[in-house]
């Protein structure tokens, strides 16, 4: 079955961003430059946090605006990025209504969730989970 990340309970989020580091670490690097999940405050720490991550849409808007078909529809929902086809135009990032297409500045191409669940493995408070669509 096809999987995606699900925000189980955003109110449990403490904003530690360990998930973001886990995501970047799939390339065995440190830092946040390649993360495809993003945690920010909802307007100050006291307001709680917002989890921005790909929802694996059926018929995703990001793929529809890709001029080179670098973002391919994934069966069951979501997209797969074919980097070699991508020209880095940024249309996809503009089109995503939740802002879940991130930008890898080192290669000037989008950073897109691969639905691996590494972020959820490192969430200490069960905020997110990998679930079947």
């Amino acid at each position, binding site marked *: 079955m096809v999987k995606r990340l699900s925000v189980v309970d955003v109110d449990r989020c*403490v*904003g*530690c*961003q*360990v998930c973001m*580091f886990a995501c*970047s*670490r799939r*390339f*065995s*690097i*440190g*830092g*946040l*430059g*390649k993360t495809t999940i*993003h*945690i*920010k*405050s909802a*307007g*100050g*720490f*006291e307001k*709680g946090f917002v989890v921005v991550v790909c929802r694996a849409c059926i018929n995703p808007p990001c793929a529809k605006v890709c001029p080179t078909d670098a973002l391919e529809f994934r069966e069951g929902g979501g997209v797969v990025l074919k980097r070699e086809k991508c020209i880095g135009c940024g249309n996809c990032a503009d089109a995503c209504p939740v802002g879940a297409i991130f930008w890898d*500045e*080192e290669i000037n191409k989008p950073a897109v969730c691969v639905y691996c669940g590494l972020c959820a493995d*490192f969430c*200490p*408070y069960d905020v997110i989970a990998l679930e079947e669509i």
Partner: protein
Amino acid sequence: MLDKTIAKVLFIDLTKRSFWVEVREELFNKYLGGAGVAINLLSEECPQGADPLGPNNVIVFAVGPLVNMFPMASKTAAFFKSPLTGNLGESYCGGRSAVALRSAGYGAIVIKGASETPVYIAVHGDNVHFRDAATYWGMRSTHGVGRIIRENEEGAGVRTIMRIGGAGEKLVRYSMVVTETYRHFGRLGLGAVFGSKKLKALVISGKKTFPVVNKTEYRKIYKEIYDKEVKSPLLQKYHELGTASNILVLNELGGLPTKNLKSTSFDAGENISGELLAEFYLGRRTACAHCPVACIHLATLREPYEDESYFYKTTWVSYDYEPLFSLGSMLGISNTQGVLKLMHEVELLGFDAMSVGVVLAWVTEAMETGLISTKETLDLKFSWGDYNAYIKAIKHIMNQPNEFYTYLAKGVEAAALKYGGLDFALAFGGNEMPGYHTGPAAIINHLTGARHSHLDSGGYSLDQKVLAKKVEMEFTPEKIAEKLFEEEAWRQVLSSLIVCFFARGVYTEDVVIKALNTMGYNFTENELKNIGSEMLKLKQKFKLREGFKPENLKIPKRALETTTPHGKIDEEIIREAVKAYFKKVQE
């Protein structure tokens, strides 16, 4: 080192409004980062005898090689010449400061000179902007200015917004710099140094990534460290009740400074305990970036407006052990909401919570003993527990409407030198005392520690461990001095990586070595210990250069009169230990 960006030092000159980068590989190779690098940069850049509030003082921010690589390496070191003590200023902060600074592609930032007009600096990766802060100057609330900058700058989620409030602008010698609203460079007056440079805020963000030598090994060691952190019972305690859990422990032990240290147990300790706060006020727990522990505890304070029925406001107040001591037991405040209200005001205006509490405690006793009267205080009457008077007083300390409040803004020792009451002015080396009166090791730590902070060498912890027989040692002056020096030296290594001290039980020598290996650093345990000791000596050397004299250290009589869990402390023991410690510094 594999990653060269750590060796980049961003210099910012506020006088000339210019910036440049210098690569200091030799410095970062030898001293790792953080404290070790910062003390070198401070010694180089701050001329001897510089006025701490003049343009010649410098501010050094530094991070270390473990930041952004391993969890709980989330601290930034700030080094400067302290306007409070006149020598070493050193303070640490988490929030998102460390992750942001390193992500911007630097190991350190040095801020020099002074601006003629209010300014704030935005560092976004390679770009440095000098932004006009005329509109922000005069905003007393650290919350307000943070909120506005948040809306105007990029990098939501991966940036730090360091800023000062009214106390920093008005050069209160113990004003702080706040980041991410609830974390602080609290001690030794960094806020006033910002204020003296007309620097309202510093925003930093970036998106750099960092390579490792051995990918499999990196992921394996990361997981080991992470697992230890989420499973450690000690860290669990910091997550659950937070540092406030220590209130009842210290109170029962008889080590909680109360009413200007007239006593070490507070009869209303329960009211300011972590347990009570969690049960009735805790609204949210949050974390510094890259820390699974989430020790930041925010209380919700719901208050009615008196002029209209059913009109409420809810305020979020960050609480920890230290402000609960300094603005709670130290002032004899038994009203929980009163403590929270005072704590909130202190945070808004941007004071170091510990110092301002100790100053207010001295004021209360000075009034009690008749050294000062309502003539000096502008009609404010101080008595233990009267939090409303304290809330009014801190506004006076900020604005300094008369000579008395101007002296209060200089610190408790300066005020006592002017008005009397030195015996109960609770400062060590010019820095107001922390919340531990646990025994000889704590007092020796306060006197000898390079920044006169309880975190320098953990004397309070040694006192407690010896008491509980967790550490077997001869509790003699020489042995205590030796143990504290050794601990302080190792902590320099942690402060150079930079690891939060809460994780010091996780980042043991072997773990630090393994973690560093993954990034191409090859240190042996001995080498690390030796550079720790060297860094500590460099810090003490800077202090001596700036006029610090160990033989002139004052011990407030009160600290010797009031009993500790180890009984009353003999001055001779303290003096001998101080001598032994500084002998080790000279070795």
